[in-house]
């Protein structure tokens, strides 16, 4: 897919009409992610229940369409999944961006697979992974900024 198609077919919709943009009142976890080179700032809020299932998740902040859309798509994918499943999806995404993902991995990425061609825009990779890296930290470090 060329750049314009990626925008048209996937990024624009998620950027302009995100499903998961907003704030929630009682997140279990909250973390800021920054991409200093372009000034992108994202805040993720996650609500995870006692069984490790991601009940709800939202993002807020400003940034380029790639980072916003990628974040929205990511949340689409992980809401309702377990912490472990979300980690697996993240790994798959990171590998896809590096062009190293297997067939299986691509499959679990569903809509996010459309971002594969971002790998051809190396300068934008940082934008695409911003939300993912931030989520990865939440999942791995269990960091609680608020409870």
């Amino acid at each position, binding site marked *: 897919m060329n*750049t314009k198609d990626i*925008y048209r077919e996937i990024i624009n919709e998620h950027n302009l009409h995100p499903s998961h943009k907003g704030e929630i009142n009682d997140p279990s976890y909250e973390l800021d992610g920054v991409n200093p080179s*372009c*000034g*992108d700032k994202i805040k993720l809020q996650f609500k995870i229940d006692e069984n490790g299932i991601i009940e709800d998740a939202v993002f807020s902040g400003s940034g380029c*369409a790639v980072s916003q859309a990628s974040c929205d798509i990511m949340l689409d994918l992980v809401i309702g999944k377990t912490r472990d499943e979300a980690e697996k999806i993240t790994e798959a995404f990171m590998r896809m961006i590096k062009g190293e993902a297997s067939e299986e991995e691509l499959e679990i990425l569903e809509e996010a697979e459309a971002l594969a061609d971002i790998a051809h825009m190396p300068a934008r990779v940082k934008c695409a992974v911003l939300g993912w890296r931030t989520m990865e930290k939440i999942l791995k470090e269990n960091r609680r900024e608020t409870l």
Partner: protein
Amino acid sequence: MTNVFKNDFEILHDDKYIYFDNAATTQRPRQVINAVSEFYRTINSNPLRGLYKWSVESTQAYENSRRKIAEFIGAKDASEIIFTRNSTESLNLIAYSWGLNNIKKGDNITVTILEHHSNLLPWQMVSKVTGASLTYIECSPDGEISDEEIISRIPSNTKLVSAAEVSNVLGVRLPIEKISKRAHKVGAVMVVDGAQSAPHIPIDVKALGADFFVFSGHKIMAPMGIGVLYGKSELLEAMPPFLHGGEMIESVSRYDAVYAPVPEKFEAGTVNAAGAVGLAAAIDYIKSIGFDTISQREENLCRLLIEGIKTIPYAEYYGSKSAETHSGIVTFNIEGCHPHDVASILDTENICIRAGQHCAQPLHEHLGIPASARASMYFYNDESEVERFIEALKKVRSWLGYEH
């Protein structure tokens, strides 16, 4: 291709591409590329200490370049020209060698809010190491600096003032003469960052009141990897060396060394003679075009581009309203579109621009914009490119999914 100014630039012959990232680095004419190859094909050797023909000729070529640069910027003597890698290294050399040895706690360093990180971080470093304060001269939204700012931000304990002659974001020329006058009044040393001025306007370090002046070869059509530091003889002579090594000494014993006179004192290790030869060729080239032609063409292109932007709803540009004070640089934003997306989309139209903060984060903060897109033109760009650029720009919002 009817634009004769592109003739010598093979990379620009493919009209498909519009190169509007000249403030980042310019293109090199074949005269420069060939001068470098020619050096390697005919007299390549290590200059300075040679006792044979090639080495003598390399030395002459290297020193000719030094003289040419001295003349180009109005230095008193060729020994005031030090070859470095780029402006960044030149500024660091001043910071380490002059700054750390002449600035102390209680002193002040003044810069402007328009600086490129390369003319900011070295002074942050000196300020942190010495305990000296760091003060900013602020500018109005269109990049103007008032006389009051100059006076009040250069207090009497100021030891060094450093300012860009031309901003790499707004393209505006700073009132260097006024700044250096105030700097000298309080006994401070004046550093001028000419990275963005040397490609566009004639330089006279004496008229600028510059004690130090730096610029980068690659922004003035010379090869990458060669830059210049000009320093007044008295200053350079009193400064300790920065890098230590071969070629910059008179004699070395086990525990001590006597340094060579300037400029060698500051040029440790094997010099980039081929780079210097390329820079000399670039200076010849720029002279053959002429600064009058360069600024006329840039002004005209800036005017067209600004007029075009004005016709686009949701688009705004930064800096002065008048095209003459843009040095080929027009920085802009399109509402609702992040500059990175703008650049990515323009790339699909083979238009090369830069997006982000252009190594000038404090200025972006000061202007209240998180990031911006920058089109920077040079004399070899032309009206048809500006027109294509504007046509593409008009469509950016729709490519990014907006209805209008």
